[in-house]
């Protein structure tokens, strides 16, 4: 129980640290002004302070719900529950955010919810197929047992494409590279922030926390497959994600339908290829 609690807290703290480091390195780049190192934390605290009397009950409900489900998913991932259970709880979290966007009743909210639903379908499909491949290779879906197997048997050899697929899901969730659906919430246009239209102040801060937790859950899930001790695996996967975070600065944003095609191509097809290899070719 102590180990689970330590992992839980470490993951919750590690994701904001990644974004703080990203902000700091970004400010060191040529032509950039030095910004505050703790900028992401300042933003979060500022949002908690703000009062929004116009925010309806449902926005608060959906924000709190999504945060709760992300925390449950993190606990399940850390405690080594079934992979598909974790995915189903994460999908509940995503659905809460999308329903909140619909509840705004505004055009931009509905439009961004449409984008988000297409992202939801892609990552859920890829996760389910990945789950089937993992079950075929490991005969179990419990993350705890998979972690043990991957250290002993090198499970990653049987699941290389599934691992790529899961990492692409992580990139989709982080709105990075060609998998950015334009729903990150930190864009300079109302279209980019539209998914979070109904959320403001406190509820937006809670949504931000939920997103950070969700990134931590995927980092943890992917780290389970590496044939290394778990803390080392988690650090490696985090550093890999961090390098993609930096690389994202040099990649232009694509239109969201193109991002959807790329996501189907990488997340969807990679998991299907691994599935076919495991079930029919071997």
């Amino acid at each position, binding site marked *: 129980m102590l180990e689970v609690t330590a992992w839980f807290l470490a993951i919750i703290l590690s994701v904001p640290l990644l974004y703080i480091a990203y902000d700091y390195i970004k400010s060191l780049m040529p032509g950039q002004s030095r910004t*505050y190192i703790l*900028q992401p934390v*300042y933003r979060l605290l500022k949002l908690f302070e703000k*009062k*929004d009397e116009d925010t309806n009950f449902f926005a608060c409900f959906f924000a709190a719900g999504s945060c709760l489900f992300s925390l449950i998913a993190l606990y399940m991932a850390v405690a080594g529950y079934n992979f598909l259970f974790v995915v189903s709880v994460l999908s509940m979290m995503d659905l809460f955010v999308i329903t909140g966007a619909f509840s705004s009743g505004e055009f931009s909210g509905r439009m961004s919810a449409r984008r988000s639903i297409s992202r939801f379908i892609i990552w859920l499909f890829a996760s389910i197929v990945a789950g089937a491949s993992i079950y075929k290779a490991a005969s179990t879906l419990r993350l705890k047992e998979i972690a043990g197997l991957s250290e002993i048997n090198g499970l990653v050899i049987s699941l290389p494409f599934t691992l790529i697929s899961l990492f692409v899901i992580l990139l989709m969730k982080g709105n990075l590279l060609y998998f950015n659906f334009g729903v990150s919430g930190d864009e300079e246009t109302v*279209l980019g922030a539209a998914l979070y*239209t*109904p959320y403001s102040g406190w509820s937006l801060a809670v949504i931000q926390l939920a997103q950070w937790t969700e990134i931590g859950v995927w980092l943890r899930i992917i780290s389970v497959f590496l044939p290394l001790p778990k803390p080392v695996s988690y650090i490696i996967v985090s550093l890999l994600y961090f390098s993609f975070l930096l690389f994202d600065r040099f990649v232009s944003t694509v239109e969201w339908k193109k991002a959807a095609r790329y996501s189907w191509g990488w997340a969807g097809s990679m998991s299907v290829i691994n599935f076919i290899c495991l079930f029919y070719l071997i």
Partner: protein
Amino acid sequence: MNWFSKIRTKSISVFAIQAGGCMDCAHQFLLALSGNNEIKGISVTGNPKHADCLLICGCINGKSRDRILEVYGKMPDPKAVIAVGACACSGSLFRREGNGLYTAEDILPVNSWIRGCTPGSAEILEAVVRAMESVKEPDYRNDKRQE
């Protein structure tokens, strides 16, 4: 200045609204941040519900007045309002034309004024930080000037 006020000035989301006119004031502000996503923790947002500071640029007429009030109503408290440039501060060249022009102060409680045509980028950024420092907790929506 309490603890939260210090944090408030280190992360400021600005919603810039162009009420009318030559757009130079809005361009000055956006140029100041071009290439840099954030200077002094200042960032641009397109969503009024995520904004801390409203930047009013240009001449305010009847139509833009309604839009400004609508945007202001959506911003969560505490929030600051800044009148940028001579047009928003006093009406500038157009104040005697009789076209029903308003100054920013006529319609909203303004925290900071930046005079000049066109004000410099550095002054605008400095004013944004100073305005957020001076923001008070009360809800300005009950202010009589809006009615």
